[in-house]
């Protein structure tokens, strides 16, 4: 974005807002990565640490809200500046939710602590999470660079996440039917997969906000939806 306001301190405050969002986004991305790593290794200590670190994300959201309110009151922003600030507020809210999902994944990791025999679905979960992390990174880059095209690409990629989620849902149901002892860990894994799928939705929402910030309107057209898990049935043999 143009950093050439006549009042330089205004530029400085807008940059600060963007830096805080970048920091928050980086943290959310890392929390998700660490939550998945802890799940793969059944590392309860790491999982507990993730729960603890979520506070920093929450605190950042509060700081961003405060800064945005101060900016609106002090500068009475217009046009692209107004859109940047409003987008900042919404993006921060989305990132905070992403942090919550990472935390929830970590909590479930502590609960199930070990699910040997479910390596397959767990590696699928890790693949899905890797995809979502990439989306978080790209959408943050798009936000910082005010790059709507890049944001639109991220939005399009959410279908892949939905597809993996639908497949995983079916796979986990099958495991549960095979052996009732799988029901507890598989149910947690189902929620974990759902959490990751929701993170993808929040990233998509951020991508749409970036598009709005740049163009002044939301992207046209319904977002492609590929999550069929709501319609999935697996009949016992």
């Amino acid at each position: 974005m143009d950093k050439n306001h006549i009042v330089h301190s205004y530029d400085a405050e807008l940059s600060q807002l963007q830096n805080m969002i970048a920091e928050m986004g980086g943290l959310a991305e890392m929390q998700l990565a660490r939550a998945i790593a802890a799940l793969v290794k059944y590392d309860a200590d790491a999982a507990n640490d993730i729960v603890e670190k979520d506070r920093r994300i929450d605190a950042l959201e509060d700081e961003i809200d405060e800064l945005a309110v101060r900016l609106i009151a002090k500068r009475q922003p217009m046009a692209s500046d107004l859109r940047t600030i409003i987008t900042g507020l919404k993006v921060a809210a989305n990132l905070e939710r992403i942090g919550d999902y990472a935390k929830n994944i970590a909590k479930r990791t502590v609960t199930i602590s070990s699910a040997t025999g479910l390596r397959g679905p767990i590696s699928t979960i890790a693949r899905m999470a890797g995809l979502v992390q990439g989306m978080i990174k790209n959408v943050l880059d798009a936000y910082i660079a005010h790059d709507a095209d890049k944001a639109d690409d991220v939005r399009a990629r959410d279908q892949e996440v939905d597809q993996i989620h639908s497949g995983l849902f079916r796979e986990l149901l099958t495991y549960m039917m095979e052996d009732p002892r799988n029901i507890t860990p598989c149910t947690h894994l189902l929620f974990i997969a759902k959490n990751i799928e929701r993170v993808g939705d929040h990233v998509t929402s951020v991508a749409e906000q970036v598009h709005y910030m740049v163009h002044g309107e939301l992207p046209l057209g319904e977002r492609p939806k590929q999550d069929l898990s709501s319609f999935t049935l697996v009949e016992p043999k």
Partner: protein
Amino acid sequence: MAEINVALSARDSSAPTGKIKLSARNVGVFYGAANALRDVNMDFEEHQVISLIGPSGCGKSTFLRCINRMNDTIPGCRVVGSINMDGTNIYGPDIDPVELRARVGMVFQKPNPFPKSIYDNVAYGPRIHGMAAGKAELDEVVEWALRSAGLWEEAKDRLQQPGTGLSGGQQQRLCIARAIAVHPEVILMDEPCSALDPIATAKIEELIDELRRSFTIIIVTHSMQQAARVSQKTAFFHMGNLVEEGPTDVIFTKPHDPRTGAYITGRIG
């Protein structure tokens, strides 16, 4: 401002009709050889408030003065193009500029009451245009105009005192009363609040919103927030050109032209 509602309900007050009140076509202004305004094309809807914004010297006041032919009074000033009011070119041969100025009133940046009583300030226009038959009728017009300007309650017990003895905000409302006393169709305002405090400004803005029911209002302002608050349509001028005009909501959230964006966000244009 209940008193305004009462005063205005007597008149044909209506919501925006979509009817074009004024349309400027290829309007240009020269001060001697200097071309201060170029090729302005713009329509003004009846019962709307239209803001003209832009950096100092871009030609806002020059354009505003075209609409009541005030530029005619400036030596060396030449206006080209046409401005139609209800379909008639106000620069046509049959138009008397003095009569035109009764139909298109003007309020200036600095409140400028005449050095006369409050009553005479308001009665001045109706008197010279022969709009009141006798004392009783004139009293009525004065009361109506002062009520419409939201000044009646404050002024009714001091009508014979000088207008210059009022506060700045009251003086500006007196000037608005003076402008509307001749029942104009259009009111031009050139930075009407720039000399007023926030409370007096808010009162004028409230008044503008009420007056729009009866008049078409064109306002020049340097306050983006004021333009955003009071107008339905905004036009941005830059170096003698009309760069962009459109619904106020759009201009202040997603202006089309980068020059508009640069100006309203406080960047160097």
